[in-house]
């Protein structure tokens, strides 16, 4: 009985609850060297190859701040409408963990580089005809800090291996206000944020390499209440899909907990997403706050950003997704759905403009890039676009000129992704050229008409279907190479 009650509560309770989500995003900055020493930030080096006395925390060493890290962090702040503090400071966050060589992390505590910004997100834009709504998500702060090393736990051995290549790689931590109300909104925010960080070249945002990481604070409360519920932190989320699944699962868990045990039964804790089991798992409870003993790092003087430097940084910011979308709407005659999708990813937007730059019709280019390209791109490594922009432009032009059919074009595109050959080469080698010579086509059509006297009779009696059948026969006889428009007009001509 009780079991049933609980079940029904949870089922019809969803709309009685509100989910409150705030994010903490760590993004590795696109610098060549680490934040406080001159070691490389390259990903995928041999273990401990990119280390030196400074990032290994050897006695006597001192940090010296990388100016590019400051520039990129300020750039992110400006792009996210933050105020950039003229004076900011570094602090030490003290705790012991083997991935932290100095047993403190240099971060920014009470004087972060950027504060109080926002990012507008649109939800509902995933569907071409969805109703779009704009939400403003507050960003409480962006601060600079150093990344920690990596721990590797070899299976079945009583040891942990340490690699400090990542220790000292510059990070920004972006902390949002608890302004999101659903896992979809959280994902939409993260996508928009990723897009801005990529556009501004602040970070390459490779989630699979850990250069963009997201921790989530999630709580639930009864609809209409203004106090926040107990918040639970969820760590270890490595893809958009995981984030959406994890948040949905965690919100569901909290609602059930709330219904069965009341609001106080939800504990303030840190949980980890277990992808295999499809649920979050408790890592540790937060008994009081951890005592990090923050204090200003005496090794680093405060950072001053004067007006002229800020101006320089501001002017260095390239066109942002929102601005680019407006321009695409204006210049290329796209609809908002297409413009949104194209500009959502900088690499895609750049690719589109390259294709259009070769003189291809802008709507036609959008069609190929949005409808056809994703099919071949999903298998490509690192989401790279596997066809050069001028090859695609060439292909679209050849279709426009009637050299090949639209359907053949799709096959050629697929082939280009695999062989990296030009469309011309593929068309030539496979003999895919469309038959557009009227003489050759007339010959084929005459053959078809003589072989299908019945259908010709039907047509003459007024059957509309007959012409479709005859067209099919013409295409078949030409092995798909007949230019359909020409074929149809010739067919009609010969029948009348």
């Amino acid at each position, binding site marked *: 009985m009780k079991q049933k009650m609980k079940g029904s509560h949870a089922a019809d309770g969803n709309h009685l609850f509100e989910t409150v989500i705030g994010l903490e995003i760590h993004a590795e900055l696109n610098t060549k060297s680490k934040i406080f020493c*001159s070691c490389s930030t390259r990903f995928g080096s041999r273990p401990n190859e990119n280390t030196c006395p400074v990032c290994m925390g050897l006695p006597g060493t001192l940090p010296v701040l990388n100016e590019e890290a400051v520039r990129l962090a300020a750039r992110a702040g400006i792009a996210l409408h933050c105020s950039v503090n003229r004076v900011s400071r570094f602090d030490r966050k003290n705790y012991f963990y083997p991935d932290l060589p100095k047993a403190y992390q240099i971060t920014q505590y009470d004087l972060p580089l950027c504060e109080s910004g926002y990012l507008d997100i649109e939800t509902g834009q995933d569907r071409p005809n969805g109703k779009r709504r704009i939400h403003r998500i507050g960003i409480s702060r962006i601060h600079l800090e150093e990344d920690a090393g990596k721990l590797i736990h070899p299976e079945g051995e009583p040891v942990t291996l340490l690699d400090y290549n990542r220790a000292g790689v510059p990070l920004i931590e972006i902390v949002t206000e608890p302004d999101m109300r659903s896992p979809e909104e959280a994902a939409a925010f993260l996508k928009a944020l990723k897009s801005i960080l990529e556009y501004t070249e602040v970070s390459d945002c490779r989630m699979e390499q850990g250069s963009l990481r997201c921790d989530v604070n999630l709580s639930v409360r009864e609809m209409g209440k203004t106090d926040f519920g107990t918040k639970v932190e969820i760590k270890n989320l490595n893809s958009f899909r995981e984030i959406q699944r994890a948040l949905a699962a965690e919100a569901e868990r909290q609602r059930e907990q709330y219904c069965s045990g009341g609001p106080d039964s939800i504990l303030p804790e840190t949980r980890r997403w277990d992808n295999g089991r499809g649920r979050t798992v408790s890592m540790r409870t937060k008994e009081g706050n951890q005592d990090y003993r923050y204090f200003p790092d005496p090794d680093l003087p405060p950072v001053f950003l004067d007006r002229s430097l800020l101006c320089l940084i501001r002017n260095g910011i390239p066109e942002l997704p929102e601005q680019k979308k407006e321009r695409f709407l204006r210049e290329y005659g796209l609809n908002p759905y297409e413009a949104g999708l194209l500009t959502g990813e900088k690499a895609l937007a750049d690719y589109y403009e390259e294709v259009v730059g070769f003189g291809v019709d802008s709507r036609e280019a959008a069609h190929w890039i949005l409808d056809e390209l994703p099919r071949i791109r999903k298998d490509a490594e690192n989401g790279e676009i596997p066809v050069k922009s001028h090859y695609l432009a060439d292909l679209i032009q050849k279709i426009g000129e009637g050299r090949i059919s639209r359907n053949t074009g799709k096959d050629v595109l697929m082939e280009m992704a695999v062989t990296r050959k030009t469309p011309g080469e593929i068309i030539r080698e496979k003999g895919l050229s469309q038959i557009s010579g009227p003489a050759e086509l007339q010959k084929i059509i005459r053959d078809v008409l003589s072989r299908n006297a019945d259908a010709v009779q039907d047509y003459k009696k007024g059957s509309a279907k007959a012409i479709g059948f005859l067209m099919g026969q013409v295409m078949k006889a030409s092995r798909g190479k007949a230019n359909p428009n020409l074929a149809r007009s010739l067919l009609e001509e010969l029948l009348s």
Partner: protein
Amino acid sequence: MKVDENTIRYLAGLAKLEFSGEETTRLAEEFQKIFDHFENISGAYSKMMDEKPEPAWESVLRKDEVKPFGSRQELFQNTKPMRDGFLIVPKVLEQEKK
């Protein structure tokens, strides 16, 4: 501020140090005296809120250039157990509640 043996035990935990019972008692007594002495700065504090902080220095920044540290061998000459370029420690257990 009041210092007792629990204070010392809490702090020792944070600092990753271990003290015997006797040492803990001794430290608690010493710290109590020290903190009683520190109290003389509390009064001074309230009288000086109008002091402006020292004008700070200029930012000191480094160019974003990669300069690898020369010798791996020298860098890790003090590191005892290593394997395939990794440092080794006893297994780090993720604290996970079952």
